[in-house]
């Protein structure tokens, strides 16, 4: 089985980078290889960020997959995209590991706008996005309004597909206190009904995609390795 890691987006990608580095090293230590995937227009990949749409993200991955079996591991929006790929398009995805996936796109967009708003306040909000332009500034990224609207209207719960109900789904919920929120419990229940092989893991951990430059993520990584080793 091949392992593919899907990064989160915007500033979360930067802060989560060190986690992905530790994940690769941990896989290497047990003789496994995990590939980190840069979608078109992100990371080291060719293309411009402004060209990204929700469809292009999925197509980037599907163009990349070959006839092998895959385990997709994703963080935040990367986890959501992995989930969509499993549900909508590919029969080659045999296992899914999601770390705090974006469940409701509107919540995520509101969060991004709040983050941007704080930055605007700090600079006196001098550069506003024009209504007539096709792009919005999100944390320095030229982001198409199409992508924003596609994410905003997205709900993971609405994309469930019983065709792939046998695929094991490992759902990691990280939080400062290690407790599940009511929403996370609800999400788990819905996932469990549609995908009986769903497992949930609650961990007390720093949210490494939020301004945490580096830390020790061995507990999370060891759990992920356990999930990967399960047949």
């Amino acid at each position: 089985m091949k392992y593919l890691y899907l990064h989160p987006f915007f500033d979360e990608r930067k802060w989560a980078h060190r986690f992905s580095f530790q994940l690769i090293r941990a896989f290497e230590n047990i003789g496994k290889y995990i590939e980190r995937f840069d979608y078109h227009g992100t990371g080291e990949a060719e293309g411009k960020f402004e060209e990204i749409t929700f469809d292009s993200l999925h197509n980037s991955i599907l163009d990349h997959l070959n006839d092998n079996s895959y385990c997709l591991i994703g963080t935040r929006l990367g986890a959501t995209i992995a989930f969509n790929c499993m549900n909508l398009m590919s029969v080659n995805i045999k296992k899914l590991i999601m770390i705090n996936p974006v469940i409701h796109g509107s919540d995520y967009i509101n969060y991004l706008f709040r983050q941007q708003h704080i930055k605007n306040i700090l600079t006196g909000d001098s550069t506003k996005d024009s209504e007539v332009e096709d792009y919005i500034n999100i944390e320095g990224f030229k982001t198409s309004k199409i992508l924003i609207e596609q994410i905003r209207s997205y709900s993971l719960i609405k994309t469930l597909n019983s065709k792939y109900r046998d695929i094991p789904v490992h759902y990691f919920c990280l939080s400062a206190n290690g407790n599940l929120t009511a929403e996370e419990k609800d999400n788990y229940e819905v996932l469990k009904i549609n995908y009986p092989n769903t497992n949930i893991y609650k961990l007390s951990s720093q949210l490494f995609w939020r301004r945490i430059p580096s830390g020790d993520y061995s507990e999370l990584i060891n759990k992920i390795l356990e999930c990967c080793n399960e047949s």
Partner: protein
Amino acid sequence: MNLNSTFISEDNLLSYSCEMPIVKTNKIGILFVHAANSTRLGPHRMYVEMARHYQNMSFPTFRFDMRGCGDSYGQYNEYKIEPDITDTIAAVHKFIDHAKLDQVILVGISKGARVCYTIMSKYQIPLAGMILLSTSLINNKNGMKYSFEQLIMYKKKLFQLSTFRKILSGKINIKQICKTLYSPIFISHNQNTKSDNYVYSKCPILLIYGDKDPIFKNSYEYYTKELKKNDITHKCHIIQGANHSFYHYKWKEEIIRVSDEWLKQFNEKEYNV
């Protein structure tokens, strides 16, 4: 031709990306030095976009991760600048050797810009030029001032309802607050900017600041004075409304535009776009 590989700096294996122009190759390459706790992608992928643009101007480019950052091994020390300088000098040698260059242009932002400036001042390196973004003046006075400003900010937040809720639910990150308060003092103590009477590797410099960056005024005054004192050719560009990390794509585009114009002096012939 693009290459992702590693090189050694002291005992650490550092990761890099080197991109060579397809058609014509300049003998001057451009090396990017990232900020504290960042990666070779730069803030909001700015370094990747700049590198691809400069590559089209015929410049080979080199981006690397400092020890303990991105994909590099080792431990990052945000309070010290010396390890970053060591890593950058090792990167310069690797780049020159790999791309068969005569000289390099350094591009740095924030702490990365201070690393570049210190290298120019204290080391003999074949530098053709430098593009320095948000280069800060670090001294004890500024460190104390910044810590005090943070303290005032926390005091204001203390009386907000949301803060009160966070305190009750135990979501206040005391460790992070303490770090925010003492970091500027620690950094100013360890990385104090010192005036130079002799500069080892003089080269033309393009300084870029955002006028809404809290460090702008003091830093701009200090560095322009220093450059004049040492008779170093320099140009300064101020981006209206921009902050320290240039968190708007329009500011990023302005940086690329301005640097593109400045870099033409290093390209004798028309470049291929």
